[in-house]
């Protein structure tokens, strides 16, 4: 079909934080015809990621991704954010990829385009195309890589005079320095230290003295713009073990609240992380039909020996635990069950808020970012690259990311902002 003039495609807002929703509207189309709306992103690793939905224009010649049904593509149904949540590598890409922003000072650029029909769009020139920016950092947030410090990480400070509540942010067994969640928390008003505690594939370096984490916590606590009584901790997976250890055993550190995603309570402070992982890797690991390693079943028997459990009954602050019921890497739900029992016995179960998401996997990340059921993973002990099964189905996992992030922000605001309560 010849178009006299391009259709009008607009994405609002054109520039947004990663956790903000957008509207995608196409106007001036022929009515009642099929169209494909597609997102395309070139990652920092130079891989192309895309998502697309199949739509039919209405009789005003318009279609709205927020309001209309998608009849096919990488998502179906009414999915306002489907163009971001269901992104996957384009056909022909390397397998096992994961999309994670390294440079948080620049936005993720996503091209949204509209094509005629529901056939393969990759051969066509789009009818219209716009670019939208997705940011991890709000304007005014400052980024300070820690220099001349034994602690490795990056501090993000919100704009304004402060004092701000603070956060210590830790990721899991993949290691390295991931700044994006810390930058996003700072964009919501929390001075945040994204902590690196071992390099990818170098788990031996994880044998930090616990003082490493206490020092990290104090870096935020002692920051001139941070309210020292209002510092929380955020840990995912292995990071949640560190979080729980700090919250229960530290004589130096007293977090105001903690968030654990895909919780781990079986690596107590007394056992080194290296030893813990070494023990786990001695067990035969199951592989699924795609040759992905499934660790969940390896961990379950380990939970029977509770002597190495973190003494969660010693916790002194509110705790939010987010778990995916389809977590194939870690039995997060069973672990939270375990912790709940322990807390109940100690009369402290009022401190624990748990949210378990059906069909969500292990990697519960900030919203509107793709879901990864399995990805390449550098296994530190054996120093080999494997395909790791994280679990989850895309739609419920995306919903879980959106809902949990909202609940996390609300939990943090409740505990870290506002006047002191007696």
């Amino acid at each position, binding site marked *: 079909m010849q178009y006299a003039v391009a259709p009008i495609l607009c994405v609002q*807002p054109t520039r947004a934080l990663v956790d903000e929703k957008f509207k995608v509207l196409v106007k001036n189309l022929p009515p009642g015809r099929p169209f494909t709306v597609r997102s395309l992103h070139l990652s920092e690793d130079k891989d192309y990621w895309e998502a697309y939905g199949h739509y039919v224009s209405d009789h005003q010649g318009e279609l709205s991704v927020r309001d209309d049904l998608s009849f096919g593509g990488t998502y179906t149904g009414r999915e306002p954010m489907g163009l971001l949540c269901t992104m996957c590598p384009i056909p022909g890409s390397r397998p096992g990829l994961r999309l994670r922003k390294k440079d948080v000072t620049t936005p993720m650029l996503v091209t949204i385009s509209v094509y005629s029909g529901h056939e393969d769009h990759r051969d066509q020139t789009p009818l219209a195309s716009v670019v939208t920016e997705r940011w991890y950092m709000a304007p005014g947030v400052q980024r300070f890589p820690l220099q001349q410090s034994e602690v490795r990480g990056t501090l993000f400070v919100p*704009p304004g005079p402060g004092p701000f509540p603070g956060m210590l942010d830790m990721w899991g067994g993949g290691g390295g320095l991931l700044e994006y969640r810390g930058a996003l928390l700072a964009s919501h008003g929390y001075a945040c230290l994204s902590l690196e505690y071992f390099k990818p594939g170098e788990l031996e370096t994880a044998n930090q003295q616990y003082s490493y984490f206490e020092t990290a916590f104090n870096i935020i606590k002692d920051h001139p713009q941070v309210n020292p009584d209002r510092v929380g901790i955020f840990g995912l997976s292995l990071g949640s073990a560190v979080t729980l250890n700090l919250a229960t055993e530290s004589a130096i550190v007293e977090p105001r609240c903690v968030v654990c995603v895909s919780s781990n309570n079986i690596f107590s402070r007394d056992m080194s992380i290296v030893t813990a992982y070494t023990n786990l890797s001695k067990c035969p690991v199951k592989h699924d039909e795609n040759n992905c390693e499934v660790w969940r079943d390896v961990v379950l028997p380990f939970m029977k020996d509770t002597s190495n459990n973190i003494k969660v009954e010693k916790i002194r602050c509110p705790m939010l635990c987010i778990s995916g019921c389809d977590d194939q890497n870690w039995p997060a739900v069973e672990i939270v069950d375990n912790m709940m029992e322990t807390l109940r016995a100690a009369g402290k179960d009022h401190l624990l808020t748990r949210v378990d998401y059906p069909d969500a996997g292990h990697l519960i990340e900030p919203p509107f970012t793709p879901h990864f059921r399995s990805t390449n993973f550098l296994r530190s002990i054996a120093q080999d690259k494997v395909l790791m099964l994280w679990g989850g189905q895309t739609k419920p996992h995306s919903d879980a990311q959106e809902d949990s992030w909202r609940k996390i922000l609300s939990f943090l605001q409740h505990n870290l902002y506002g006047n002191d309560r007696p």
Partner: protein
Amino acid sequence: MDRTQCCVQLSVQPSRALVDERFVILVEKAPPGFQLSVRALHQCEDGHSWEAFGHYISDATGTVNVSQDLSLGGTYSGVEAMGLLCSLRPVPGSKPGLRMRKKDVQAPMMVTISVYQGHQVEGFVDQVPLASVVVERWYVAPGVRRIPITDHGLTGTLFLPPGPGPFPAVLDLWGGGGQLVEYRAALLASHGFAALALDYLTAKVIRETGKMVEDQYFETAYKELQKHPQIVSSRIAMIGLSFGTTMTLKMAIYSKVVKLRCAVCISGSHVQPIEKSVEEILSSFNDRADKTRINEENQVIWRDLLLPIPTDPSLKADVGSLQCPLLLVVGEDDQNWPTKESAEDIQEMMERAGNSHLLTVLSYPDTGHLIEPPYSSHTRTSNFKPVGTNQKVTVLWGGQMAAHARAQEDAWKKMLAFLRENLYGGRKASAATQSNL
């Protein structure tokens, strides 16, 4: 309030936006029933500081929502979601006669929004706010391309929307102050219109030859747009403000080359000697300079220069022979041009000629001359140096801040709808509507 205890949370959404997009400012976790001032601070490119502020009281949950709550005073009052931008004015002690206009459209306008304890009216700079965030306001959407146009003696800048196109286009003209003013064209491109901002009074060719441009200059600009592979040659409009209206009507009615799909005329008039050059038209206005009025504040009022609206047809553009839809934007308190009287006469002429179905008039009470894209400060008076003179005067543009801000918001929305209808829509001219707001 103990500063070590209280953590007030301030958020502005979206934190990055186009200048014509609204934002929501939320203050949370303040004590309930607490007096707060919310303030905007902006330092413009020439170094001057501008501020606006509103006085609020938090509700029982300790929340203030600027979009929903009443401002009890400050530089604006009432429920004004965008009051902090619309009522921006130079900070006390600034030079008089300032006007805020973005020169570099590829960088955002940065505004600091802060919340202070109590209902303050001054001295913000000496206090520490409870919280503060930074907001970016952009004239360009991501992917908009900026292309300087210097071929064929033109001085202009073309802004192209992202995507393959083809796009309709707009030739964008400002008024008697001259210069190359890009921000409206940049914004139009962010809404899907290729837009060429044209300097026609202080262009390089004028500075080099000492002579004003002729009709050919505008026709060349039009042809440049037509030639562009990503522009639909049959879907080109012109938008002109003030003297830009004079040029727009001249081209729309008399040019054999320029065939507009539609035209937008803001704060202008059809009064001009016909079949004269640009230079002659400018002289004819200058010849009436004795009708200039100076008010008690020493501000120059030029609206009488073209009054009374002549009856002699050789002194007015023949709007009765217009063949494309025309949108007129009128500020009823325009002290610089007789826009309202001109619009009334245009309406009469077109009704007599039988083409008034092409005309839409947007007329706004208490609104001045400088009807700009929305959510920017209102300039009631400012320093001005008309092209061809060396005298800087303080001009009275007119308008009352709140009404003018509302007019800018409404007019912009309607202008975009008019352009979309005529440039993206079908071949038929749109039905005439007249609204007196």
